């Protein structure tokens, strides 16, 4: 632990806190059934119909036929008929609650619990992303186009029979190999080719999409009449709004001007521009508070309801 050694006071503080939390947890387990999850289970069975090449599977048990089955569990209230305590889900809820508290403990300062949670989240999430990119990127995108028949038999049974080897996918395959070549001690520069390909396509694609959807679309939606007429004649405030919007956009654009120093008229206009930007930021800040508080509410909901069954 790289921190400066803790003071005795801080250590005692942590000790007391840990003791209180652990005692509380034990108490909660016995009095509140904390974290306990009940489920009902249902077995799904499939039976083989036909033989060899023609073999298909149909749902339901057929006597004598080869069968496969698995259990599907549904979370239910404890008083439901046939409900059983699910060990793995109960352990899961406890684990989730403990990890939640570990992360929150960071608010009191860096500590071993947070470090543990941090180490877990990095390891687990890196692996999670890798697993998902393997199945959805490598298998579902690359392999189905390079070796369709093998992939169909192995992992994508729904791949249509019409699917064929698609040579265009050799491009990403070759580029991927060049990229991984970086692991070899020699010729690491070969990885620059795929990087150049990626950055080149990115530049081309983004140039178009941002110019079309951000530049043109935003100008288009700002264009409105500055003299607003409604069902009952001239509308004062909407007209004022329209004028203010147009002037504000122009002032902000002046703020972003790089060629001229912010002095004189340009400086004054740019100043108005930065004021508008500050109001924009203030508004976004205020609106975001609501979202962030909701996230905390959800976490407390989990702790109080799913774990402690207090609500």
């Amino acid at each position, binding site marked *: 632990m790289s921190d400066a050694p803790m003071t005795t006071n801080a250590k005692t503080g942590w000790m007391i806190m840990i003791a209180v939390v652990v005692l509380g947890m034990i108490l909660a387990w016995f009095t509140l059934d904390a974290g306990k999850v009940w489920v009902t289970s249902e077995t799904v069975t499939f039976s083989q119909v036909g033989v060899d090449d023609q073999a298909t599977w149909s749902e339901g048990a057929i006597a004598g036929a080869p069968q496969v089955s698995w259990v599907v569990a*549904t*979370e*239910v*209230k404890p008083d439901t008929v046939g409900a059983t305590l699910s060990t793995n889900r109960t352990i899961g809820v406890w684990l989730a609650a403990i990890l939640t508290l570990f992360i929150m403990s960071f*608010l*009191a*300062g860096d500590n071993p619990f947070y470090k543990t949670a941090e180490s877990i989240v990095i390891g687990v999430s890196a692996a*999670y*992303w890798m697993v*998902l*990119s393997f199945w*959805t*990127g490598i298998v*579902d*995108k690359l392999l*189905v186009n390079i070796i369709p028949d093998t992939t169909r038999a192995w*992992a*994508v*049974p*729904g*791949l*249509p029979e019409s*699917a064929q080897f698609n040579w265009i996918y050799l491009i990403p395959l070759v580029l991927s190999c060049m990229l991984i070549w970086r692991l070899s001690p020699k010729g690491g520069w070969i990885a620059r080719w795929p990087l150049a390909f990626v950055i080149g396509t990115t530049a081309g694609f983004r140039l178009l*999409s941002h110019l079309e*959807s951000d530049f043109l*679309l*935003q100008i288009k*939606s700002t264009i409105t009449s500055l003299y607003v007429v409604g069902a009952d004649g001239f509308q004062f405030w909407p007209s004022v709004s329209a004028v203010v919007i147009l002037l504000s956009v122009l002032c902000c654009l002046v703020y972003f001007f790089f060629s001229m120093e912010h002095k004189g008229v340009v400086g004054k206009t740019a100043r108005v521009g930065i004021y508008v930007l500050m109001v*924009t930021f203030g*508004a*976004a800040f205020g*609106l*975001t*508070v*609501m*979202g*962030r*508080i*909701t*996230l*905390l*509410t*959800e*976490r*407390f*909901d*989990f702790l*109080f*309801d*799913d774990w402690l069954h*207090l*609500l």
Partner: protein
Amino acid sequence: MLNYLRNLDRRIVFLLMGLAVALPILFKLSFPEPVPEGSQPYHVFDQIDNLPDGSRVLISFDFDPGSQGELLPMAMGFTRHCAQKHHKMYFMCLWPLGEPFVEDAMNIVIGQEYPDLIYGEDFMSFGYKPGAEAVIKNCIVDMKTLFITDSRKTDLNKIPMTANIKSAKAMDLIINISAGDPGTKQWVQYAATPAGIPLVAGCTGVQAPLLYPYIPNPLKGLLPAIKGAAGYEQVLIAAYPEMGAADIVDSKYSSKAALQRMGPQFVAHLLMVSFILLGNFIYFYDKKGGA
């Protein structure tokens, strides 16, 4: 006292914030939540409700567990509403950590509250697809080459709902629940605008300001943050009182999940306001005193 406030430990601020959220939850504090006639939750409700029964609706869950507090109630509300109207639901997901929520919507909400709906005929899932806006762009051109199979690896040509559909242009409505990019903005730019498909969305509070410029065209309705979700739940319950009657164990899937989360907002917002006032009081006091 003032000196104490001047050097207020961050942890005190943290503790107060924690209490401001925790106590209203424990005491189930709630405040009136007026949904003005003609406000966004009504727009969203009308878009889904006025579609002919059995219309095709593409629902994209573009969020992850981090934002579930704000977005899960809307996602489940949309699912319930579509199921109630017997719309054909096509689920998909552009965020890698979001797919389990699609499964929850199908297994928990549809499975327990609308057990007569059948997978493949009334609802189906394309699953998670990496590629962000490229997926959306290709979605309105050719869904079958894009997805190939559903999330259960069944050929799309063999699923009744998708057999005769080539692209998302066949959809009558797109619903998007988004926590960022890829999200509502990309659906507006790459699907709703070029293909002319109506779009309604639910988004986080952070995203909302960026999306207001797209209302009402092509964004027909927007549920901003938990406030929007709560409003939508209220409108839904008023229209379909029987909705969400099933006994769902996990309260986060219940039909009143968002409404339950509005109480803490009030207290926490007041606390934030007091922090700002207090901070400025100290600042001006010090300035006046020449400190």
